[in-house]
């Protein structure tokens, strides 16, 4: 019982405290202090995660499971970054300087490896957007057709081509020009939809948070009793 009741009690007390802190004066530091406590716990929990990562990959290497050479790369990269950052290797200002100081091994790893790798992964989106659009924007029904038309207007409106295509429209009909239609879709239709979804999400967050604070929802603890 204590394994479930104690966490629920802590959740309830902290949850109520944060709500009270928002509505009553004199609790200015509660929010920031509790956030810092969470950051500390998460940082300590990282040791758990890092240890698990090492154990898992070393086990894979030892047992020669499929993909074990990549596990060696992972372990080496992990240890290199940890040692370079922890001991500030190559840092011109020694241990007192910032970890990312110019010339340090950590900075080298960031500039030469982390940056390009992150940029590469993010660049995948450009290709995936194209293939997803090609597949998704088919006029299968009325709603899909509306989506297709809106997508085409926005895509064209974001380039100079949209303006050129409808530059021939007379002044009274300029509101139908692609850039103006694109702005209208973003600032009216999209805005209404975004607001509705945000309101729904907000209510869902309130409901879920209340259930968690009051201990009604406990399945994240592994127990279902309430």
């Amino acid at each position, binding site marked *: 019982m204590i394994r479930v009741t104690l966490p629920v009690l802590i959740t309830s007390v902290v949850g109520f405290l944060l709500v009270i802190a928002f509505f009553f004066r004199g609790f*200015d530091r509660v*929010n*920031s202090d509790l*956030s*810092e406590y969470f*950051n500390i716990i998460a940082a300590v929990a990282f040791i758990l995660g890092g240890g698990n990562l090492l154990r898992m990959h070393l086990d894979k290497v030892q047992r020669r499971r499929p993909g074990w050479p990549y596990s060696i790369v992972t372990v080496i990269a992990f240890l290199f970054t940890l040692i370079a950052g922890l001991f500030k290797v190559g840092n011109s200002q020694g241990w007192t300087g910032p970890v*990312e100081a110019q010339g340090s091994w950590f900075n080298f790893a*960031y*500039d030469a490896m*982390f*940056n390009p790798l*992150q*940029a590469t*992964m*993010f660049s995948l989106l*450009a*290709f995936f*957007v*194209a*293939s997803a*659009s*090609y*597949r998704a*924007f*088919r*006029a*299968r029904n009325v709603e899909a057709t509306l989506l*297709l038309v809106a*997508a*085409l207007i926005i*895509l*064209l409106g*974001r*380039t*100079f*081509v949209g*303006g050129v295509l409808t530059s021939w429209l007379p002044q009274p009909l300029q509101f139908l020009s692609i*850039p103006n239609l694109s*702005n209208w879709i*973003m*600032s009216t239709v*999209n*805005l209404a939809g*975004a*607001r509705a979804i*945000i309101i729904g999400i907000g209510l869902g967050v309130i409901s879920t948070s209340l259930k968690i604070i009051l201990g009604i929802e406990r399945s994240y603890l592994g127990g279902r009793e309430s």
Partner: protein
Amino acid sequence: MSPAGGSLFDRIGRVDRRWIYVAIALAVIIPLMAKLTFPVITTPIVQNIFDKLDSLPEGSRVILTADFGPSTVPENMPMIQAVLRHALHKKLKVYLLTLWATGIPQLDLLEKNVLAADFPDRVAGTDWVNLGYKAGNQGVINSAFSDFPGAFPVDSKGHDVRTLPIMAGIKRLADFNLIVGIGSGFPGVKEWIQFGGDPAHVPVAAGVTAVEAPLLYPYYPRQLLGLMGGLQGAAEYEAALVKRYPEYQSRSEEAIKRMGPQTVAHLVIIAFIVLGNIAFFAGGEFKGRKRA
């Protein structure tokens, strides 16, 4: 359901995604190599930011945040560089900071590529200051709302901010004239609006990735005076800057140059969408549905 091989239209409707990837790659590489650029017109939502910065008197205090990482540098870096150049040209006091750990290198790049390169006469600590990174997400903004020096006690070089001339008279967020948030996620512009600009009555302008921009439209124009969305927004700001101050033409056209490949890529995506729909209507899938 159409047969495995199907007509030409069916095959077009099921084209291997790798051909799409090749087309997109070419659509980006060729315009980039050919240095293809297109005219950019600044829309009102971006012009508002430019006009606001342009109208601020000399010595006004502007917070400029770099809340993004390496992955969104192509979109966010041109906009923050253009805004920084504009602010320094107008002799405003600029306070650089970030709520992202990966924002530190971006601030270093700004120091190198804009401050040192274009404004070497500006003095750190007097005309501008790099307050670096502070962990705590929106908690930092909450803290800065009532005690700004307390939230950022040292600059990026470790100097006590109370000893810096630029921090004289700054007690809280309301002492600033403008917040320009350049970001790509959480924490970002939304947090600066909700916890900073709106309660402190400081105008907020934003520059975000194209994906984030639609979510910020509800805040425009009351809580957000302007919004640069993605590379297009960055290009529009650069166009406004270069139009008013042509001396920055060679230094501040990164986004304008990248709009060439983006425009061509958009057109290629549109072409594929149209092709897909032609294949859908002319091929077996639509006819099968009609019969059903």
